């Protein structure tokens, strides 16, 4: 009962395009800070953008807007997710399948991940939620 009273947003990141990562993180963080429960699942190529080395070097795939965001040095998706986590109910998960395929460990990812999980766990979290796929 109680679970249904808080609207839940599930955001699935598939792409490593900076614009998609940014848009999903922006919506999710503001939603969490506005009282929604937000669960983010990062899988496939999107995981690559969350690797520590890529975040440190700002090594991202961009289009026109993404390039200008880097140019203007605006806070990027890791900053947005951090804000959401600090000021709301936002959890970030990595996909165990893609991690296994690539041989990546949770420690290779930026320190914002709550856990690395499989599809069944995520489906449980996403049940009854609004789902956004980026």
């Amino acid at each position, binding site marked *: 009962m109680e679970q249904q009273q808080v609207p839940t947003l599930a955001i699935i990141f598939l792409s490593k395009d900076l614009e998609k990562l940014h848009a999903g993180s922006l919506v999710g963080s*503001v939603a969490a*800070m*506005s009282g929604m429960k937000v669960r983010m699942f990062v899988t496939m190529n999107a995981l690559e953008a969350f690797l520590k080395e890529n975040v440190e070097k700002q090594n991202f795939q961009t289009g026109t807007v993404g390039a200008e965001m880097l140019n203007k040095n605006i806070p990027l998706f890791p900053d947005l997710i951090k804000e959401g986590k600090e000021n709301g109910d936002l959890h970030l998960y990595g996909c165990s399948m893609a991690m296994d395929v690539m041989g990546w460990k949770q420690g290779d990812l930026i320190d914002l991940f709550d856990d690395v999980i499989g599809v069944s766990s995520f489906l449980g979290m996403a049940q009854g939620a609004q789902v956004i796929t980026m």
Partner: protein
Amino acid sequence: MSEVDVKKSIDARGSFCPGPLMELIKAVKHAQVGDVIEVLSSDTGSAKDIPEWVKKMGHELVYCQEAGDHWKIAVRKAR
């Protein structure tokens, strides 16, 4: 505009959406009910979006006005 007792003013000029909104959310969270928080923003999107957020969250928009090259937006925490 009558005198408003602004409890806290946040200068978020130069920050793009959702920066000013996020700063406001944090300030409202730590404020007491009835407090007025003001945000200065040079971001056009925020001037439209912050009032929407205020409405959605059930707070009160005290003012949202242009002041030269930026906007002044004030919100009273209602709950």
